[in-house]
C-alpha cells in the first residue's frame, strides 16, 4: 500500500511539473517613441491679496502665471516635453492644485500635470508645486520654496529642473547662466564685452566696458567663478572673475599666443596653451601657488585642452599628424592617443560633464560642423552644419551644446552677424539663443542651486 502511495505521489509531482510548463507569456519591449511627453502646466494659483502685493512689488500682473510660463518655456525648449495649450484645460488652477480630476487631464492627452500655489508670507515669495502622474492618478513630487520676491524667475527655473529630473532621470540645466562675449559694431572694428545671462536669455548683464579685447570666458565647474583671456597693452593676460562679488584678479601674463584657459574639474587649476620659444604646448597653472607645469612637449602646435570630469584625462587638438586632429592623454601628459580619424580638420574638443562624449568643431570641404564622438573616437555624429560655427560648450547635464554661428558678409561688406545657438544630442532640437547684441564664445555654468 505504501508503494502505491509513493508511486501515486511521484506521478502527481510529474503531472504538476508538466502542467507548470504552460508558463507565463513574456513579451520584450525594446523600443519606444522619442516624441516629447505631453505635459500640462497649470498656472500657479494665487490669492487676491498676494496677487496685489506682488503686482506692486514686481510690476507683474499675475506672478503665478508668469512662473508657470517660465516652466512651460523651459520644458518646451528642452525638446523632451510638449506643454499643452492652456485653453484646453478644464480644471481651475486652485482646484487642480488641491486634487486634480485626472479624467479631465487624461481627456486632453496630458501624461503629467504641474500645479502650484503662490503666497506672500511676510513679504517673501512662497511657491509650492506638485507634479502629478495623470495616467497613474498619483502625485509624483511636491516641493515648496520661500525666497525674496525678486528671485521669482529662478524659482521657475528650479521647478523646471525638478520636473525634468523626475521625469527623465537626469538632472536639469535650467537654473544656470551663460557667459559669452557680446559683440557690437562692424566686423573690422568689433567692440567685445564680457556678458552674462540666464540660460533662457533673460537678465543680461555686461561685465566689462569693451575697452579691451576679451576672449574665451570659461566657467569654473564648481563655483560661479570665470576665467577669461584679455589683451592688455597687446599682451595676453589671463583673468579670474568672481561673478557673485565682481572681484577680478590677474592670474598671469603669458608670452606669445595664449589660448583658451579652462578650469580643471576641481577648479583648482587652469589648463591652457601658450607659445614658448615659438612652440605652442599645453600647460597647467595651480591657482594656489601659481606654479606652471608643462604637460605636452612636442614640436607641433597643441591647443584647446579640456579635462575629463574625473580629472584623469585631457583631450586637446594637435597637428602632430600633419593636420589638426583630436588627441586624448593622461592628465600628466603621458599616453597620448589620436582619437579622430575622419575626413577634415577637428578642433575645440570639450569633454562632456557626463564623461561619455567629446564635442568638437569639424571643418570639412569648407563647411563647419558641430559634432560629438565617444572618448575613444568611435561613434562620431555630426549634429549641425553651417558656413561658420565653433566653440561648443556643454550644459551641466551633458545633453545640450551651446555654440556660436557667424553669417557671411555680402558684397558690400554688410550682413555679418554672430549669434549663439543651442542643439541637443539628438541633433533635431536646434534653437537660437536670445541675446541683446551679437555673441560668441559661450560657456555654460553649473547648476546654481546645486
Amino acid at each position, binding site marked *: 500500500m505504501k508503494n*502505491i502511495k509513493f*508511486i*501515486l505521489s511521484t*506521478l502527481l509531482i*510529474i*503531472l504538476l511539473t*508538466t*502542467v507548470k*510548463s*504552460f*508558463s*507565463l*507569456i*513574456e*513579451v*520584450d*519591449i*525594446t*523600443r*519606444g*517613441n*522619442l*516624441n516629447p*511627453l505631453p505635459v500640462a502646466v497649470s498656472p500657479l494659483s494665487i490669492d487676491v491679496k498676494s496677487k496685489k502685493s506682488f503686482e506692486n512689488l514686481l510690476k507683474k500682473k499675475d506672478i503665478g502665471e508668469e512662473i508657470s510660463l517660465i516652466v512651460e518655456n523651459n520644458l518646451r525648449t528642452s525638446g*523632451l516635453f510638449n506643454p499643452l495649450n492652456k485653453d484646453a484645460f478644464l480644471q481651475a488652477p486652485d482646484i487642480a492644485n488641491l486634487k486634480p480630476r485626472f479624467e479631465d487631464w487624461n481627456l486632453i492627452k496630458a*501624461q503629467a500635470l504641474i500645479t502650484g500655489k503662490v503666497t506672500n508670507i511676510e513679504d517673501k515669495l512662497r511657491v509650492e508645486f506638485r507634479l502629478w*502622474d495623470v*495616467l*497613474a492618478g498619483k502625485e*509624483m513630487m511636491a516641493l515648496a520654496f520661500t525666497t525674496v520676491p525678486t528671485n521669482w524667475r529662478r524659482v521657475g527655473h528650479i521647478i523646471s529642473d525638478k520636473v525634468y*529630473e*523626475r*521625469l*527623465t*532621470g*537626469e538632472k536639469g540645466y535650467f537654473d544656470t547662466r551663460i557667459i559669452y562675449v557680446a559683440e557690437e559694431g562692424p566686423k573690422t572694428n568689433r567692440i567685445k564685452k564680457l556678458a552674462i545671462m540666464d540660460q533662457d536669455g533673460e537678465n543680461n548683464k555686461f561685465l566689462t566696458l569693451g575697452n579691451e579685447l576679451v576672449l574665451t570666458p570659461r566657467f569654473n565647474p564648481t563655483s560661479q567663478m570665470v576665467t577669461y583671456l584679455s589683451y592688455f597693452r597687446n599682451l595676453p593676460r589671463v583673468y579670474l572673475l568672481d561673478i557673485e562679488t565682481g572681484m577680478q584678479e590677474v592670474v598671469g601674463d603669458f608670452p606669445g599666443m595664449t589660448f583658451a584657459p579652462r578650469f580643471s574639474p576641481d577648479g583648482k587649476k587652469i589648463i591652457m596653451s601658450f607659445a614658448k620659444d615659438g612652440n605652442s604646448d599645453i600647460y597647467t597653472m595651480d591657482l594656489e601657488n601659481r606654479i606652471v607645469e608643462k604637460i605636452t612637449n612636442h614640436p607641433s602646435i597643441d591647443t584647446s585642452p579640456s579635462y575629463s570630469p574625473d580629472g584623469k584625462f585631457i583631450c586637446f587638438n594637435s597637428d602632430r599628424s600633419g593636420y589638426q586632429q583630436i588627441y586624448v592623454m593622461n592628465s600628466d601628459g603621458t599616453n597620448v592617443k589620436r582619437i579622430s580619424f575622419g575626413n577634415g580638420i577637428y578642433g575645440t574638443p570639450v569633454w562632456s560633464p557626463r564623461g561619455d562624449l567629446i564635442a568638437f568643431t569639424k571643418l570639412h570641404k569648407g563647411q563647419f*560642423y558641430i559634432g560629438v564622438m565617444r572618448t575613444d573616437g568611435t561613434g562620431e*555624429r*555630426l*549634429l*549641425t*552644419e*553651417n558656413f561658420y560655427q565653433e566653440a561648443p560648450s556643454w550644459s551641466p*547635464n551633458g*545633453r545640450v551644446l551651446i555654440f556660436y554661428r557667424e553669417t557671411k558678409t555680402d558684397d558690400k561688406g554688410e550682413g555679418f552677424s554672430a549669434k549663439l545657438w543651442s542643439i541637443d544630442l539628438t*541633433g*533635431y532640437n536646434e534653437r537660437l539663443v536670445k541675446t541683446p547684441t551679437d555673441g560668441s564664445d559661450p560657456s555654460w555654468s553649473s547648476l546654481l542651486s546645486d
Partner: protein
Amino acid sequence: MNRSIILSSVFHLFIIILTAMSLPFLSKKAVDLPPIVSVELIQITEKTNIPFAPKAKKIIEKVKEKEKKLVSEQAPPKKVKKKKPDAVPMPEDNIKKVEKVKDDTQNPEKVDNEIKQVSEFEKEELFDPNNIAALIDKSKEETALEVNKTDQVTQDQTKNFDNTGLTLSEEDALKAQIFGCWSIPLGLPYNENLLVRIKLELKPDGSVSKSEILDHARMNRPGQGFYKVLAESALRAVKLCQPLRVPTTGYERWKELQLNFDAREMLEG
C-alpha cells in the same frame, strides 16, 4: 494479482492524462488549423521587424545581376552592344544626383545618412564577382548570426512556436502598439541594467485589470532613481495603450502577460 491490475491501470491512466496535458493538439480545440498558420507566416515576413537576413538578400540580388552581366559578356560582340550597357551607369548617376541634393541640405541627420552611403559604396567596391560562391556562403553565416542575435535579444522567441505563447504576428501587433505608447525617458544611462518587468492580468477585451512591477522593491531603494523613472514610464505606456491589442481568441493563453521593458538599445542610439 489485483494489486498489479490496479497499479497497471493507474499507470496507464496517468500516461493518458500526461499525454492529454502535454500534447496541445489534444488539449486545445482544433482552432489553429494549419492553413491559418501558413497565412500568418507570410504576414510575418512582410510585417515583422525581425531582420530577414537583408544583407544576404542584397548579396543574392547582386549576384543575380552579375550573373546576367556575365551571360551577356559571353554573348557575341554585336549582342554585347545591344545589351544596353547604359543601364549599368544609370544607378551611379542617380546616386550622384541624390548626393548633390543632400550636400545642399543642412539637416544633420541627412549628413549621417550621407556618411553611411559613402561606407556602402566602399563595400560595393570590395565586392569581387569572381568570388560569388564564397559570398553566398558568408551570407548564410550572416543569416545564422542574425538569428542568433535576435534570439539573444528576445528571450521569448522560441516560445512563439509553442502553442502556449503568442504567434509572431500576434506578438508583433502587441509590440507595435506598446512601442507607440512608451515615451522613453531619454536621460537614463544606457550602460546600466535597467530592465523593468511588469506582470499584467488582462480582461478578455485587452484592458488591464491588474499590473504589477516584479522588482517593485528596487524602486524605493536608494540610488535606484533611474529604475523608478523607467518603471513609471513603462506603467504609463501600459495604461496609455489599453485595451491592449491581444488576439481575439485563446483568452486562457494570454490572460496573464509579462512585459519586459528594456530601453538600452534606444538609449545607446
